[in-house]
């Protein structure tokens, strides 16, 4: 599946990204490429730095060092709003929804549509758009006016994903999108990811379930202690190899990523 895509210039290209929290080295010289129409799975132990990397992409955190290129151009992502303007959308691990607000309010939070510049919100327009996004996702939510407080975990997940589609994004980052979901719901979110890929988006999906991630992704990137620790073709890699890379035992297949012998 990746044969055609890897030749082209990547949609997102990150080089030598480094991020510290005090003494904690959350990311050290991390590299990552994502192509359009490609799903890259990001795995690693708890605390490996996956969410930190996602937040750097989304403009929530600023790296101390490193280069980010989007569509071949070097960019900085100082704020979530800037990320959004660049066509980067993210579903955060903890969902980041306001439970007191309605489904439509949440989907457009922080990027409300207005009836005119500087004017009041276009509430009808946002509710209609929210409905059509949810319909495109074939999501079953009673009404876009329902407060998120009243939704199930799976429905909230759908709202969080719908949030990312309000402006046509180029790159989608999903941080453990299926963590709270049942088997059926998980399958549906994964189907959704493939549909997004088929639309030509680049998708980064973070998770812990290797079987699911192998099924849905084109490539699997492993992080360990904030460093790249292996890159695998989803179709051909053996699970034991990937687990070894995650746990840090055994050999590391692609030494060019690795800083340790």
């Amino acid at each position, binding site marked *: 599946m990746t044969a055609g895509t890897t030749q082209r210039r990547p949609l997102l290209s990150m080089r030598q990204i480094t991020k510290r929290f005090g003494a904690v080295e959350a990311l050290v010289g991390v590299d990552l490429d994502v192509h359009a129409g490609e799903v890259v799975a990001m795995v690693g132990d708890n605390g490996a730095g996956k969410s930190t990397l996602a937040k750097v992409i989304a403009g929530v955190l600023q790296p101390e060092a490193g280069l980010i290129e989007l569509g071949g151009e070097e960019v900085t992502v100082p704020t979530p709003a800037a990320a959004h303007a660049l066509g980067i959308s993210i579903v955060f691990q903890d969902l980041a929804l306001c439970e007191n607000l309605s489904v439509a*309010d949440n989907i457009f939070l922080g990027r409300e549509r207005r009836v005119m510049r500087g004017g009041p919100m276009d509430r009808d327009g946002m509710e209609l758009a929210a409905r059509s996004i949810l319909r495109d996702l074939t999501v079953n939510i009673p009404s876009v006016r329902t407060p998120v407080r009243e939704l199930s975990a799976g429905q909230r997940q759908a709202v969080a994903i719908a949030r990312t589609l309000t402006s046509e994004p180029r790159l989608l980052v999903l941080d453990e999108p299926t963590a709270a979901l049942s088997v059926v719901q998980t399958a549906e979110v994964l189907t959704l990811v493939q549909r997004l890929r088929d639309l030509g988006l680049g998708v980064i999906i973070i998770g812990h379930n290797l079987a699911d991630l192998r099924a849905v992704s084109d490539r699997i990137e492993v992080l360990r202690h904030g460093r790249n620790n292996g890159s695998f073709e989803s179709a051909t890699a053996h699970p034991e190899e990937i687990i070894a890379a995650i746990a840090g035992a055994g050999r590391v297949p692609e030494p060019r990523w690795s800083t340790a012998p």
Partner: protein
Amino acid sequence: MKSLKELFGGGARQFGMVFALLALVLIFQISTGGKVLTPTNVQNIINGNSYVLILAIGMVLVIIAGHIDLSVGSVAAVVGIIVALAIRDWGIPWWLGVLLGLAVGAVIGAWQGFWVAYVGIPGFITTLAGMMFFRGANQYIGKSNTIPVPKEIQYLGAGYLPEWGPNTGLNNSTLVLGIAAIAAVVWVETRRRRSAVRLGAEPAPVWVSAVRVVALGAVIAYLTFLFGGGRVGTSFPFSGVILAALVLIYGFLSTRTVTGRHVYAVGGNKVAASLSGVNIRRTNFFVMMNMSVLAALAGIVFIGRSTASGPFDGTNWELDAIAAVFIGGAAVSGGVGTVAGSVIGGLVMAVLNNGLQLMGVGSDLTQMIKGLVLLAAVAFDVYNKGGRTSIFSRLFKSRGGDGTANLTPAVAGTTSMQG
């Protein structure tokens, strides 16, 4: 019951509030032998409480955003003395005095907003400090004297709409206002229906809309006759007009503007709001600053009503305003509350005060009853979980998703994994 709720548009909570207010008025009307619903008495209720209701409008935004403002009474007092002194000693015209007062309110609000939004001092502490500081400032500036204010300022706090035009048996200004209000009710209802249709939702049954319009219209018509039918020279109080304008403006701001939406978002989930690109600091700064500007306005209206500014103006106002907001359905934890609800909550307190006084109940007992009513109103909400996230429901709330998962399919329709 569902249609009954639809009647009031805002669900059970608003229904309960309006119903409680009406019931209270009726009970007092009966038990005082008709002394409550007289032109003079309702005019007094508005004149005597408009400043607290103005504060409640600002306070509900502060509380929705998850803060509290204890300084409003002191801010009102210090603004009152500055306005009174500036007009008397500097000889500036009354309107310049009003503008000066609002500007002082804005500066005080910017000061408190700075500490809350940019330094991160909790609103409780910042405004507790402000409560002490500005109370002292009022007494320092005024040397604890009482300073009279001119007629025009008195009009703001105790004046009535002018008489004009043909003799209709009513105050014509009030009549026009009442007709405009009824027209607005009809307009809002048609818009609501049209918006429902545009969304493809089924609008409420026509009879619901009709009953709502007729009921609201009847209440407004009755109030028009009540306020406009008093002795000549009285009418709907001018402070009530200010209040009504503020309810409209802030109702619009809180529900229709991006700023208002962000106030709810910050109070509901600060982290989520910030990750979504909401500017938390600007939002917090706005609610704190806005509160002080409204406190300044309340102070000016009050010195108008009491014809002078004194050293103890505004004492305990913060408590009345906060009580009004919580009776009006706001949540202690933030994120929930409405402007209209808070004003109704304030009116419940006002009617309670007034009715008990008319019944000859002493202020000691009145105070005790008001305390219990506040407690009962919030307890009722917590018990009913009437749409608010209370401390109680927070305790049992699931983070992310655990117990509540798997009730409904997330992404229905396609179940196959590979396309």
